[in-house]
């Protein structure tokens, strides 16, 4: 019984911290309007999967392609799967991310910036204020984070992803954003709709949320 009580206390503490963090998050590109968060974190470590990949063009947020010679685009593949909490209370989450930014300003020795995940450590659903799945992500939305390596340099950093499945086809509908704070890297979009996470729209590919796996 004491063990159960301790576990419940720890869980409650974690949930409270999560809610406080999501509500009080300072103004960032994700939540550009202070005191008006665009989303809340929902269930932590849900039994869910998000997979697929595609392309995002600049300026991000618009469903328009740039000529490949302009290098103003990114391509990526990403796969995250969570089985819920294990017996020790740890989130059983795994997955991988491959990200290539073809922009000239991010090239290292002439090579496009190439990020590859080394571990996925956390995942949570994204909700709007009404407690529903994030607006304009009608099939599901996830926040996940972990560590990655910059393959151009071998440096390892933390990263965060906001991931959105807005039905089929994914092109022009689904969204994706990535942050690598250590190196000041982010592919984010302006606040397109006040009720939705301001995610960058895919100009090719698909993200698919799987509620079961």
């Amino acid at each position, binding site marked *: 019984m004491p063990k159960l009580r301790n576990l419940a206390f720890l869980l409650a503490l974690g949930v409270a911290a999560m809610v406080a963090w999501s509500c009080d998050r300072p103004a960032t590109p994700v939540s550009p309007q202070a005191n008006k968060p665009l989303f809340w974190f929902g269930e932590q470590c849900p039994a869910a999967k998000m997979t697929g990949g595609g392309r995002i063009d600049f300026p991000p947020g618009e469903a328009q392609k740039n000529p490949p*010679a302009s290098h103003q685009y990114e391509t990526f593949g990403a796969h995250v799967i969570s089985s819920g909490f294990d017996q020790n209370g740890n989130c059983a989450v795994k997955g991988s991310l491959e990200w290539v930014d073809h922009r000239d300003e991010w090239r290292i020795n002439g090579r496009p910036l190439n990020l590859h995940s080394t571990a996925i450590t956390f995942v949570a659903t994204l909700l709007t204020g009404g407690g529903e799945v994030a607006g304009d992500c009608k099939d599901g939305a996830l926040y996940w984070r972990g560590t990655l390596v910059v393959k151009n340099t071998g440096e390892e950093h933390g990263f965060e992803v906001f991931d959105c499945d807005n039905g089929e086809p994914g092109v022009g509908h689904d969204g994706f954003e990535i942050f690598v704070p250590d190196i000041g890297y982010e592919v984010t979009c302006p606040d397109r709709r006040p009720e939705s996470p301001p995610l960058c729209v895919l100009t090719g590919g698909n993200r698919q949320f799987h509620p079961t796996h």
Partner: protein
Amino acid sequence: MTNYAFSETIGSAGALKKEDCMKKRVATTAGSAMGLLVLGMLSAALPWAQAWAQAPAAQSFGVAVNTPTASGTSAVAVLPADGGLASDNAPSVNVGGLAGAENAFAMASGAGDLDPGGTPDATAVSSSTLESVTLLNGLITADGVVALASSAAKGGMASSNAEGSQLANLVVNGVAITSDVAPNTRVALPGVGYAVLNEQSFTGDGVTSSGITVNMIHVVLQTVSGGGCGLLGCLPGVLTTTGEIIVGSATSSVQ
């Protein structure tokens, strides 16, 4: 195995004796029972079997050359059978002097499941990107190539598309081809063969399955053998395909 042995008996004797018929009935009954047992075991494993049936497929590559003198494929990504992500890259690609490119990246990702209602819920996406592409000593060049294939099955519908695929500053046999290239554009390459640009082929029924392969540059190498003119007239030569070069390929499918 038993039934196969009886077939031999039938063949050698020409007709079945009564005893053989009895043996056959026993063997057939035993075979049927075994079959039912196997079916029962498969049914017990149905959830696994259904999950397997939703397995998506995806693969992509940067450059593939297949000729009698040179062959090779570089920057290849193949989605694992149980889904996930695969990736590969090559800073520089050169296959036999026939095809060259820089900064080749290939990715393939996807997964398959059943939704709570029991309908397929699967996606597969693959992409290939390259820069500074040169084929056949400059006969075809492109500053950039993006091949992107995407397939999804959800809510009782399945579809595929090549949205996001592009060719940049493409020049074929000295002729610049601007803007987007229409799917399956065929261009003659005199003395060499022909090229199909933005080659797209679809599979599936659009309900339970769908797939697409997009090859942004597909060169088919051909030679003419035989033929010629003599005292009695001229005979046409025989066109023979001797090889192919594919640049920027992405395939995806769900079922």
